[in-house]
């Protein structure tokens, strides 16, 4: 696989404000690439420089072997873009809007197919100004997909969608990947990035602070995992026994729920010994789970703050 997007030392300054400050990354062809960051971190600015909507202050960009600053016309033919809050002809219907955008591309996907993909069938004859925020957002995603471009840029594709519609968009993104498309998406939903993305970057204040696949990043920053279980016959001796299991770094005990949390750096050994220990002492444990830290935890660790929906 080769990289279809190469960004090297990208800078975009607005006067004294450094919206993007020297970031570098590569996106492999046929993968789903995510860019995570808080509001104002520089995600949209980065996307806009990649699609040629904004000039860059410095650095090098190559998208499908083209420089957006120089080969924009050619590039536009080969990519599909969903802007964060697009404005469209308010009096056209959904179908008419999709037909219009399809006519801009040489080899578009049939509007009917895109309507089907995003579950917009019952809204195809509704005018754009009658759509709810979520429906409008899905049309915006549909307009990017209809291009049949090699790379689909999606800026916050599921913001404002209900859980069902989010799933629909996720399915659509997964289907696009199956078709060999590359998807570049920005998001502030950690679960979305974790489920969809093959690789991702986290940016903060215009700088890249982490890069890799979700698993690698979590493993890189979080060596430990957490084993949780409930035991209704807990006593001091048992707790001491659990704490002495191999791999256990720390024990947490929640008395009111009879819940025990074991933080371990060797989950498989600890679990095996926990089961052996339970059998030996004749103590039954319930609701056994192994928890891994998620991107949310990673983000918190890296930026020192949580992303909240209200920020968007």
């Amino acid at each position: 696989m080769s990289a279809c997007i190469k960004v090297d030392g990208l800078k975009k300054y607005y006067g004294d404000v450094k919206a993007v400050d020297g970031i570098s990354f590569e996106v492999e062809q046929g993968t789903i690439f995510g860019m995570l960051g808080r509001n104002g971190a520089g995600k949209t600015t980065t996307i806009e420089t990649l699609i040629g909507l904004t000039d860059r202050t410095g650095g090098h960009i190559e998208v499908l072997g083209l420089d957006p600053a120089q080969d924009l016309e050619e590039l536009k033919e080969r990519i599909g873009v969903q802007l964060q809050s697009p404005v469209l002809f308010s009096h056209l219907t959904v179908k008419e809007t999709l037909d219009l955008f399809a006519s801009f591309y040489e080899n578009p996907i049939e509007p009917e197919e895109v309507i089907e993909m995003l579950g917009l069938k019952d809204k195809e004859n509704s005018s754009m100004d009658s759509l709810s925020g979520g429906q409008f957002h899905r049309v915006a995603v549909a307009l990017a997909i209809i291009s049949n471009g090699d790379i689909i840029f999606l800026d916050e594709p599921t913001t404002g969608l209900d859980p069902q519609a989010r799933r629909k968009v996720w399915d659509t993104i997964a289907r696009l990947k199956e078709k060999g498309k590359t998807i570049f998406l920005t998001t502030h939903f950690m679960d979305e990035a974790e489920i969809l993305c093959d690789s991702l970057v986290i940016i903060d204040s215009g700088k890249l602070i982490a890069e890799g696949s979700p698993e690698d990043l979590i493993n890189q920053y979080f060596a430990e995992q957490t084993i949780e279980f409930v035991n209704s016959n807990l006593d001091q001796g048992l707790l001491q026994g659990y704490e002495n299991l191999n791999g256990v770094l720390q024990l947490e005990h929640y008395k009111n729920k009879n819940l025990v949390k074991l933080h371990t750096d060797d989950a498989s050994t600890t679990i095996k010994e926990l089961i052996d220990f339970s059998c030996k002492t004749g103590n039954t444990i319930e609701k056994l789970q192994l928890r891994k830290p998620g991107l949310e935890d990673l983000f918190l660790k890296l930026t020192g703050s949580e992303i909240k929906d209200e920020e968007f």
Partner: protein
Amino acid sequence: MKSFKSLFLANVKQYIRDGGTVFLTLIFPIILVVIFGFLFNEKTSETAFNIGIVEADNEIYQSVVNTLSESFNLITYDRSVNMEVLENGEIDILLALPDIDLEEFKDKEKYEIEVFYDSTKENSVIISGIIKNFFLEFEDTISGKERKISLIEKSIKDEEKVNRFNYLLPGVLALTITQLGLLGSLDFLSLREKKIIKSLSVTPLSRRMLFLSELVLRVIIAFVQTIIILVSARLLFGVTTVGNPIYLILMVLLGALTFTSIGYLLICFVKSFVAGNLLLQIIILIMMFLSGIFFPIETLPAYLKPITKVIPLSYFGDALRQVMLGLKGDYGMHMNIIILSFVLVLSSIITFRLWKWE
């Protein structure tokens, strides 16, 4: 071409489905026609004069009666008629015709036709003069005399078709197309403000295509407005225009392009829709009053007259007047076309230099 067609149709749908815009662009010309029609569509003096005749059934007067009845309302009375018919305005003049016998005509010294009129009434005085001449000719006819000098009336203008409203109608059309062209550029400001242009600019659609589809729609609306103005003026006020329709089409096209181009040039100097709207309304108002499309240039103070000559609407209105009415204008037709074309080219060049898509 495919994207142009789709974008053009999208523009048409967007325009038609926006009831307010349709109302303003299509109903406004009708409102202008109605206002100007009611104010200025006075009939050109076809005032009917009523002539009373006594003793008209003599055969010799048959030709007189026939000729008079072509131009006047004739009412016949017998000799017992009372002068009250004159006083109460029933008739403007009363002719008491003597009984003439043709065989005795040459021998008889003279005949007297009594003409009764009310000297306090303007119509009576005018008509008595006309009637005097009329009977001199009548005498020549029955006595077989031939006059050496006769008057032949020739109008240098097609006057009967030109009244004040006819004269103003090209001005109404010129103003409508000027407004369409100038205010049409506001659509672009609105697109820019609403960021539709940004949303379209991530697609391969060229901005030239976006501009072109807007322009074509504007020219088509200009033609629809022209038809509406001409048809409503005809249906509501019976106004007809002469002149070659092809020249009219070409003139409307040139005007629509020129004023659209000026509109786009003007909005280069503003950032928001509100500011653009204000600027264009002021310019339209100035052009309307100082271009001479509604008010004769002669009535303007001397210091304002030079301004008329730098206002493109002056030349457009003048050209339309020449094309629609076949009248000689204030400027030569060639001059009008050259100036409008020059303005079109110049404003286009400057616009291309100053233009900002976003």
